[in-house]
């Protein structure tokens, strides 16, 4: 009995000792992801859809990441440090993505993460970025709540989101159809669809209160069968139809709507789409493609955009979709922030926190034009809209938009510190 008790006490002591050792090891604060000494390589994880429905959509983003990394390395890297990309598939559940983020930081030891198209992913990863103190840039995610609902130190978004897209959509529609009487929505039933329609609707109703909403249709995410929805819209004949549908669902909607004359009866407004989809549209459809970077800024006048488009075409044989431009905004933003931080530090390599400080409230140039990163880490840019013309640009081969309008950033972005819906509600009503 006594011997047994001695063994028990021994194992108990061993367990306690192990626990203490673990506690000590884990309590030691981990270094920030980027060491202050100049690294050999800047390892960047690019997390975008390589499979599934998002793959065609993100292909330009992945291509652009490779193109720009090559170019930056050919020019000597960022302050002499070359980039090494780790391209990861974003497909998978949100929980998987969070686990994978941890793996990228802790096992692969990446210095920064760029990516996350899906809203649920970018929202889930933001707090983990703060926890693991890793600079994370969302390139494409459009959910407007990212920085409205939370403050994140290590998360940035270098592109526009649902607010500027849908406020500018409403402003454009009111310019194109000043006698507008009725509007309807046909959107995917998920956060981006719901939020976008809400913002668009509120903006229209605020600026023209006598407009009637004659249909609020919701379809399953990426739905391909629009027979009943198109029938409903053809019956009620709204002046304007709003849709943020993208991907395979948008292609199906364009196909089925075109045959049935949906675009003849109403001004249809698509906030997003790929070049292939813009080409498929008939004349007179309001299109932004999240800021149609092929015409704005005009590559004939903007040498930076021209160089980017030509380099992309030379390497990949076609023009980039908007996701390519958005990835360029992310990578060039990171580059500008690091270079600025190096200058501020007098040539020494900055820590992650110093890069973040340099990134905040800074501006940099991109193929699309200037991007300004606000103190809350959200990018602020102008928005543009146009109507499809059916013509193809003779030099670059992209579908040409006409009646283009550019909306200044200050007109279409929620002021810092305000909630979007409150901001829209606070505008004076026009009679």
């Amino acid at each position, binding site marked *: 009995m006594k011997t047994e008790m001695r063994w028990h006490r021994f194992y108990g002591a061993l367990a306690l000792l192990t626990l203490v050792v673990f506690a000590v090891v884990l309590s030691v604060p981990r270094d920030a992801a980027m060491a202050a000494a100049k690294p050999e390589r800047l390892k960047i994880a690019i997390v975008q859809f*390589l*499979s*599934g*429905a998002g*793959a*065609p959509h993100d*292909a330009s983003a992945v291509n652009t990441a490779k193109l720009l990394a090559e170019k930056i390395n050919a020019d000597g890297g960022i302050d002499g440090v070359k980039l090494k990309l780790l391209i990861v598939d974003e497909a998978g559940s949100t929980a998987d993505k969070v686990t994978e983020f941890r793996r990228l930081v802790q096992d692969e030891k990446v210095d920064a993460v760029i990516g996350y198209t899906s809203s649920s992913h970018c929202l889930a990863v933001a707090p983990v970025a703060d926890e693991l103190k890793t600079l994370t840039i969302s390139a494409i995610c459009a959910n407007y709540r990212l920085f409205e609902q939370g403050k994140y130190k290590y998360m940035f978004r270098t592109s526009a989101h649902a607010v500027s897209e849908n406020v500018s959509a409403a402003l454009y529609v009111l310019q194109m159809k000043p006698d507008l009487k009725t509007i309807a929505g046909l959107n995917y*039933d998920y956060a981006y669809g719901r939020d976008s329609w809400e913002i668009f609707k509120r903006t229209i109703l605020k600026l023209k209160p006598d407009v009637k909403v004659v*249909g*609020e*249709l*919701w*379809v*399953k995410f*990426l*739905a*391909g*069968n629009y*027979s*009943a*929805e198109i*029938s*409903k819209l*053809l*019956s009620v004949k709204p002046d304007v139809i709003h849709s943020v549908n993208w*991907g*395979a669902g948008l*292609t*199906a909607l364009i*196909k*089925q709507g075109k*045959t*049935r*004359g949906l675009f003849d009866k109403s001004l249809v407004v698509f906030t997003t789409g790929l070049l*292939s989809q813009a080409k498929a549209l008939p004349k007179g459809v309001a299109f932004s493609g999240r800021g149609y970077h092929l015409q704005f800024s005009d590559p004939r006048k903007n040498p930076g955009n021209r160089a980017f488009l030509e380099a992309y075409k030379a390497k990949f044989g076609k023009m980039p979709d908007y996701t390519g431009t958005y990835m360029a905004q992310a990578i060039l933003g990171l580059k500008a922030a690091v270079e600025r931080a190096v200058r501020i530090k007098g040539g020494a390599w900055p820590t992650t926190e110093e890069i973040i400080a340099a990134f905040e409230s800074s501006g940099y140039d991109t193929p699309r034009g200037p991007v300004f990163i606000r103190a809350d880490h959200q990018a602020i840019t102008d928005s543009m809209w146009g109507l499809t013309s059916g013509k193809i640009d003779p030099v670059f081969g992209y579908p040409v938009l006409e009646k283009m309008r550019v909306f200044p950033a200050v007109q279409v972005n929620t002021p810092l510190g305000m909630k979007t819906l409150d901001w829209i509600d606070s505008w004076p009503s026009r009679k």
Partner: protein
Amino acid sequence: MDTATIIAVDGLVYASWLFIVSAGLTFIFGVLRILNIAHGSIYALGAYMGAYLGNAFLGGRYPGALSYVILLVSAPLVGVLVGPVLERIFLRHIYDKDEVVGLLTTFALFLILEDGIKLVWGIDPYFIDTPFSLLGNIPIAGISYAVYPFVQTGIAIVIGTGLWLLINRTRFGRQVTSVIADREISVAMGINVARINTVAFTIGAFLAALGGAFAAPMISVEPGMGIEVIVPAFAVVAIGGLGSIGGAALGCILVGVLRAAAVHFFPELEMLVIYVLMFVVLVFRPQGFFGAVRLRRI
């Protein structure tokens, strides 16, 4: 403009698309007693094959009638390639096992086929436009309808009639009925159940591929398209009764019309309607409309 007619026509269009796939799903369950989740990826395979053949051999331009032939050929091609392979290699080992094993196996096959599609055809979208745009539109009840979906209606009617004739008027059909009723007795009576299983699964696969091939002209053929059809197909099969073709037809029409009515009057409920219907049917009649009440054998 007659809203009731519009709803009926929209319902018919949706039901036609769904019936071709659900008929195969319920047939497979009736004979093999397996819930084939891989049905969704076979549907996708049919679409890919149709779009691929249309573009590969004819460069996307062909006389109208030929495009329909391409679609009609893709379906049996996929059915014959995939059906016997899946059945013989994977499914034949799990017939006597619990139904959950069947579900898991076909789910695994679904995932494998999805990745297989990506390996073969990549991630870019495929299009086969001619069959759809060729037929133009037609005014019904004051609005314009595309004519093409009515081709799917025609196919659905042919499939439904064909299956009925197959089961009720052929020797093979009599054997299938026997296997559905009692597999063990059928074996004892000398019916080659293994062959019946393979043929039945191949027929089901053919129908899934046919549904996919004829859906392709209306959509963009892309990775992940199989998922869109499998959930409503399952709901419809549960509503109609597992193993009943007539039940599947009734389920499709009910779901199609209710969905269309929801879109016109209560758009918020459109996606909920199919599940509410399934819930109501299963609460009051758990075996579905025409499903057989199965006795549990001890």
